[in-house]
């Protein structure tokens, strides 16, 4: 009796589609204008952060509503090292990862040691992001609430070492991050960690009875998720070149991160990518449309997010991907 490989990778069609998608994405900057490229970068950014958040919530069932914390701290860490000490982001990133992972582990420790779960855990993650925002509002070394800025070079330069360059460079950087995150998460999901996390997500008491030290494995999920998210912060800092505590740590940033996977399909590998694409394209379309009609409606994007979320939760409670995968005949669509 031979053991079948997991459905996704046994399915040649899925691999074929994936390669075709990758080829298209690699060629994209040559095919589209700068506006579309900027939307594509945004999609990749949210696909990446969604994938990172998904490790914690989708795989392990631990709801974080404060992932903007890791984006913000990651961003400020590399930006401060770069601006104050001219330290390359490729070096600074390590410190960002260490700090964010530690913060994640502290939150995890407080919650899991003292049996804080579910909604209360989510509130704790919000609280940490909020405290940090307030802290940065008064942190003069990085510009406090007035903002912190990276010098923008002229457009022609390409300085990979210092991540100074054109949108095309950032596009490929984001694509590389997404691809790496995808492969990493696929590997995680098929390994013992993936099985243990899903067991904890589905029934923690039963997981414990099967010998799983649930504290330790939940900590691992938080650690990996926060480390991955800090990299998004590094990208954010060098792509946008300006950081404001009010914006980067804002809870609506955290919500944006989680909408993609929720709409695409929590716990699946393609869900965060699909959700990011759907949301970003639609949200941008709506914003454009409203602007084209000569209207100015503040918060139209937020209202739109709310509506999409409502529709998906009502009609596709598991997200778009599981249903789509079934339609495409791509295995079980459960994301494995």
């Amino acid at each position, binding site marked *: *009796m031979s*053991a079948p490989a997991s459905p996704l990778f046994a399915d040649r069609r899925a691999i074929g589609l994936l390669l075709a998608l990758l080829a298209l994405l690699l060629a994209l900057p040559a095919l589209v204008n700068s506006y579309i490229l900027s939307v594509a970068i945004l999609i990749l950014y949210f696909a990446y952060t969604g994938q990172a958040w998904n490790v914690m919530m989708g795989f392990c069932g631990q709801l974080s509503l404060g992932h903007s914390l890791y984006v913000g701290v990651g961003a400020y860490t590399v930006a401060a090292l770069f601006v104050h000490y001219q330290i390359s982001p490729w070096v600074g990133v390590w410190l960002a990862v260490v700090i964010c992972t530690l913060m994640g582990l502290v939150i995890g420790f407080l919650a899991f040691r003292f049996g804080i779960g579910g909604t209360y855990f989510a509130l704790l993650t919000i609280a940490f992001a909020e405290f940090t925002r307030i802290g940065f509002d008064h942190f003069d070394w990085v510009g406090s609430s007035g903002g912190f800025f990276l010098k923008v070079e002229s457009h022609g330069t390409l300085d990979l070492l210092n991540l100074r360059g054109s949108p095309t460079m950032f596009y490929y950087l984001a694509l590389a991050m997404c691809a790496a995150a995808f492969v990493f998460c696929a590997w995680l999901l*098929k*390994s*013992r960690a993936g*099985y*243990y996390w*899903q*067991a904890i*997500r*589905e*029934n923690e*008491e*039963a*997981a*414990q*009875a*099967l*010998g*799983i*030290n*649930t504290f330790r494995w939940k900590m691992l999920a938080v650690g990996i998720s926060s480390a991955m998210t800090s990299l998004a912060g590094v990208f954010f800092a060098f792509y946008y070149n300006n950081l404001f505590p009010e914006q980067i740590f804002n809870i609506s940033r955290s919500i944006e991160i989680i909408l993609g996977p929720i709409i695409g399909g929590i716990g699946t590998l393609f869900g965060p990518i699909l959700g990011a694409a759907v949301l970003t394209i639609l949200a941008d379309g709506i914003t454009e449309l409203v602007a084209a009609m000569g209207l100015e409606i503040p918060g139209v994007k937020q209202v739109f997010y709310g509506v999409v979320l409502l529709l998906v939760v009502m009609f596709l409670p598991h997200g778009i991907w599981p249903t789509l995968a079934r339609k495409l005949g791509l295995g079980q669509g*459960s994301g494995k």
Partner: protein
Amino acid sequence: MSALLEVRGISKAFRGLKAVTGASLEVPQGAIVALIGPNGAGKTTCFNMIAGVFKPDSGEVVFAGRRIDGLRPDQICNAGIGRTFQIVKPFAGLSGLDNVMVGAFNRTVHAAEARRIAFEILDKLGLGPKRDLPAASLTLPDRKRLEVARALATRPRLLLLDEVMAGLRPTETDVMVEVFRELNRRDGLTILLIEHVMRAVMALAQNIVVLHHGEIIAAGAPQDVVRDPAVLECYLGEETEV
């Protein structure tokens, strides 16, 4: 012969309600022992104290010569005790195969090896054809089998079974009984089972312990226990007539 599991005078009260009072029992290495008693007698509470869900208010649990009371459930599993839940707790969104693989990862870090172990155990319990279905879609008897399969996958020395035959048809009960006999005889698995189905108890148990109102009122060989007047009065009265 020294016992694999020794429970010495354990007690547990829930907000004043005494669920178990001073219960002692022994499970010798290689034996099958049944724990019976009316509803609410405290059987599951005993299991939960052995398996680490509750720390006993008093008393000791000794497994393979080592005190285990107060340890966490995962530590007790790793010490060699597998358990099923009376109210089944499947990983509902995962396939039957994945459910059992979670248990099997206790023995190996390699997914392929865990899968191989899981296949073998699922086949043994007759769940082979249903292994790719989500656990949520299984019937209750199948979910009970899955509980057993998952616990077995951790390769326990002692298996605690909490009413796994409930809801099975008599022929299915006989199949399960045969599975446990086989595990006991061939693999030397020691079993402590809570069961209301006397047909299974009589077929399997070398020893029976009877719990009533949280206290042990009888213990011994099956033929003696089922004739014990106290046991007949509180529990077996009507059933043994059948």
